[in-house]
């Protein structure tokens, strides 16, 4: 009997030790009753690293108010000065960018031209989208940075708006992943990759008093849970809500749902290596009913499109000749290409082989929903689609798809060039479909050195039309971002490009 008691005692003690040992968190939230804490949550609210130079991470660094750029896009997606005072084009390849006086990093260090150069050079080294910054030469001229590009480059200032070019005090940052030191109104205080990011007020913010004390970004597993968190009063701002989730909080009085048209499209890549038959690619384009997907299935949260660029932008593809939904035509195309359903299983075959296609996608916004709908639609024209879902975009093998579905912002800096070059140029960093067309290549080169707006529009349209005629890309439509914002919150920004969210004026009533 003694033994049992002692064993039980030891067990209980062990549990107590383990439990208290693990439970060291919590309890520090209720520090001050007046502290302004803004809680933000979404299905992809926190990324694996806060280092702005890496990949698309800069979006998150700028969103949360930790880092800022030399220039900022206004609501018309035109660059305006931010950390810079302004710029001057000395010649076709030389930009002289004057810095604002009195800007400091959150560690108190002044933002000098040298530090700006160090930051930009690093981005050039680290981010494939920043080739122009890599090939450029930098020099200091008083309080200005002089950037000389390798060849005429029309959109350097747009590139400087891209969050990858957020200015970081590179030399003094010890932890680029968890705590990059920028000039923004907030400073990282806690970072759990892909789970949680907590920012506290930057007491030394150059732009004036920062109103909120703390901002928390939380990753939440799915849309339904986001809606639940809103209902429970656990969030002040709910990012990227699905239409169903947005509908479900319609009765929550304290919340408003804002809808913002975004240049974020669902882009379809055809793998040119595995889908050599153009007729099949065209049939797929004709076989997808974008209107049903966008208007009905997704309740208008996706606006159907044929172009990569928004309808109201200068580069809209209004005049493009596209392969609009036409089931009959799709079937005809397949038939004339030799695909017919001979065994009556609903799937067409050619030379006895059924037409089977692998559609790869990753979990982001309405991707899975769209894929399932596409799968059902393509089955109607006799194509068997296998859907492979991945956690993140970077997890497919190069070319591990027949059709790849991506969610992408096509004009991240207001100009179409980076997007087009990325996915259509042979050496483009996002040319996952291995597309190549000499004419497109030539037009892209021209676009990079053309300053005249009308000529640029023509070039962009030309490129888009060739890509459609080659049946290399298609777009399902643009995302209309749904953000739930508590009525107590003031100063939160929603912009089409979705990388300005937190700012110094963000606060609660």
């Amino acid at each position, binding site marked *: 009997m003694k033994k049992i008691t002692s064993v039980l005692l030891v067990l209980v003690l062990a549990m107590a030790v383990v439990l208290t040992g693990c439970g060291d968190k919590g309890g520090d939230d209720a520090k001050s009753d007046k502290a302004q804490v803004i809680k933000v949550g979404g299905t992809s609210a926190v990324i694996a690293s806060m280092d702005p130079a890496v990949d698309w991470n800069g979006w998150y660094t700028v969103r949360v108010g930790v880092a800022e750029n030399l220039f900022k896009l206004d609501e018309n997606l035109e660059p305006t000065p931010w950390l810079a005072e302004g710029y001057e084009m000395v010649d076709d390849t030389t930009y002289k960018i004057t810095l604002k006086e009195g800007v400091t990093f959150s560690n108190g260090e002044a933002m000098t031209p040298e530090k700006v150069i160090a930051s930009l050079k690093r981005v050039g080294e680290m981010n494939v989208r920043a080739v122009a910054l890599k090939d450029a030469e930098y020099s200091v001229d008083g309080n200005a940075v002089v950037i000389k590009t390798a060849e005429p480059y029309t959109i350097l200032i747009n590139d400087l708006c891209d969050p990858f070019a957020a200015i970081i005090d590179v030399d003094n940052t010890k932890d680029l992943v968890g705590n990059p030191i920028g000039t923004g109104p907030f400073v990282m205080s806690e970072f759990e990759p892909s789970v949680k990011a907590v920012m506290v007020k930057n007491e030394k913010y150059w732009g004036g008093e920062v109103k909120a004390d703390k901002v928390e970004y939380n990753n939440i597993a799915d849309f339904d849970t986001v809606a639940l968190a809103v209902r429970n009063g656990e969030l002040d701002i709910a990012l990227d809500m699905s239409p169903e989730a947005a509908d479900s909080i319609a009765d929550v009085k304290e919340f408003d749902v804002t809808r913002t048209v975004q240049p974020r499209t669902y882009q379809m890549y055809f793998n040119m290596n595995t889908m050599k038959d153009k007729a099949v690619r065209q049939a797929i384009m004709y076989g997808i009913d974008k209107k049903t997907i966008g208007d009905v299935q997704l309740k208008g949260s996706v606006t159907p499109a044929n172009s990569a660029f928004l309808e109201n932008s200068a580069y809209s593809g209004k005049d493009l000749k596209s392969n609009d939904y036409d089931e009959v035509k799709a079937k005809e195309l397949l038939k004339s290409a030799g695909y017919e359903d001979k065994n009556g299983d609903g799937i067409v075959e050619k030379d006895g082989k059924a037409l089977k296609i692998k559609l790869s996608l990753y979990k982001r916004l309405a991707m899975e929903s769209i894929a399932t709908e596409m799968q059902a639609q393509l089955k109607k024209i006799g194509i068997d689609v296998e*859907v492979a879902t991945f956690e993140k975009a970077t997890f497919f093998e190069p070319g591990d798809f027949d059709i790849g579905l991506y969610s992408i912002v096509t004009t991240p800096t207001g100009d179409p060039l980076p997007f087009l070059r990325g996915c259509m140029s042979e050496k483009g960093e996002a040319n996952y479909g291995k597309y190549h067309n000499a004419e497109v290549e030539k037009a892209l080169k021209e676009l990079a050195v053309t300053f005249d707006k009308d000529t640029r529009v023509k070039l962009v349209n030309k490129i888009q039309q060739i890509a459609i005629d080659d049946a290399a890309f298609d777009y399902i439509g643009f995302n209309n971002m749904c953000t739930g914002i508590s009525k107590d919150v003031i100063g939160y920004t929603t912009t089409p490009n979705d990388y300005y969210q937190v700012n110094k004026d963000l606060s609660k009533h």
Partner: protein
Amino acid sequence: MDRLKKLNIPKSLWILGTIIIILIILSLLSDFLVPYDPYETCPEHVLQPPSSHHLLGTDAHGRDILSRIIVGSKTSIFSAFALIALAAGIGTTVGLLGGYFGGKVDTVLMRVTDVFLAFPDMVLAIAVAGILGGGLVNAMIAILATTWTQYARLARSSTIAIKEETFIQAAKLSGCSNMRIMLRHILPNIGGPLIVTATLHVSGMMMGIAGLSFLGLGVKVPQAEWGSMISEGKKFLQTSPWVALAPSIVMVLVIMVFNLFGDKLRDILDPKSAEK
């Protein structure tokens, strides 16, 4: 038939057996029984609550949930049966050989078994399915890797227990080949507990496959399967709970039927362990 009568099968077992046979027939005929095409999406009718049109409502793509549950039964029930057949086949062979021959054969076979037994529960299954990359077949391989050992152990211990019995010795003396002794004399005599284990295993297998599918490591979209339906429904628990709850309830009911049947069968075939 005479042998069956001698066993004195209780009525409850007959009833349960009949229910199970009906379930199997239903799942075999599922393609003809469904009120709607389980794969036909209908964007106009997404997430509709249960109604007279859709008895169990519709899912996020407007597909009829009842139809999907019915079609999903085929995947769940038959993959469970197939798994058990394979696991019992492999496990019994290993156990029988090890137990009968003993010595080095036994040592080697049991070491291999030990290795597989060293992985707790679903861990190996998840790793196998995860690394092989989903799909029903891979999921089944994954579960198979973790279940065959139970049969191997059981078959081995029963074989050892029975090996020294006089009738086996007699068969040996009369010049029967080892193969014949194992198949004709040992196997029928150790079959009872194995069958009981297999029957009790059906629900476990169904849960295993559904569990992997729930994690996204089982069947691929859009295939209807209970685990993946529940997993998908989880995303709509707050707004449309029926998407997850309907397949859950059906699954639990079916598992209960199999469990009851297994319990009753054990009472008859393996009364020793049933006493507990």
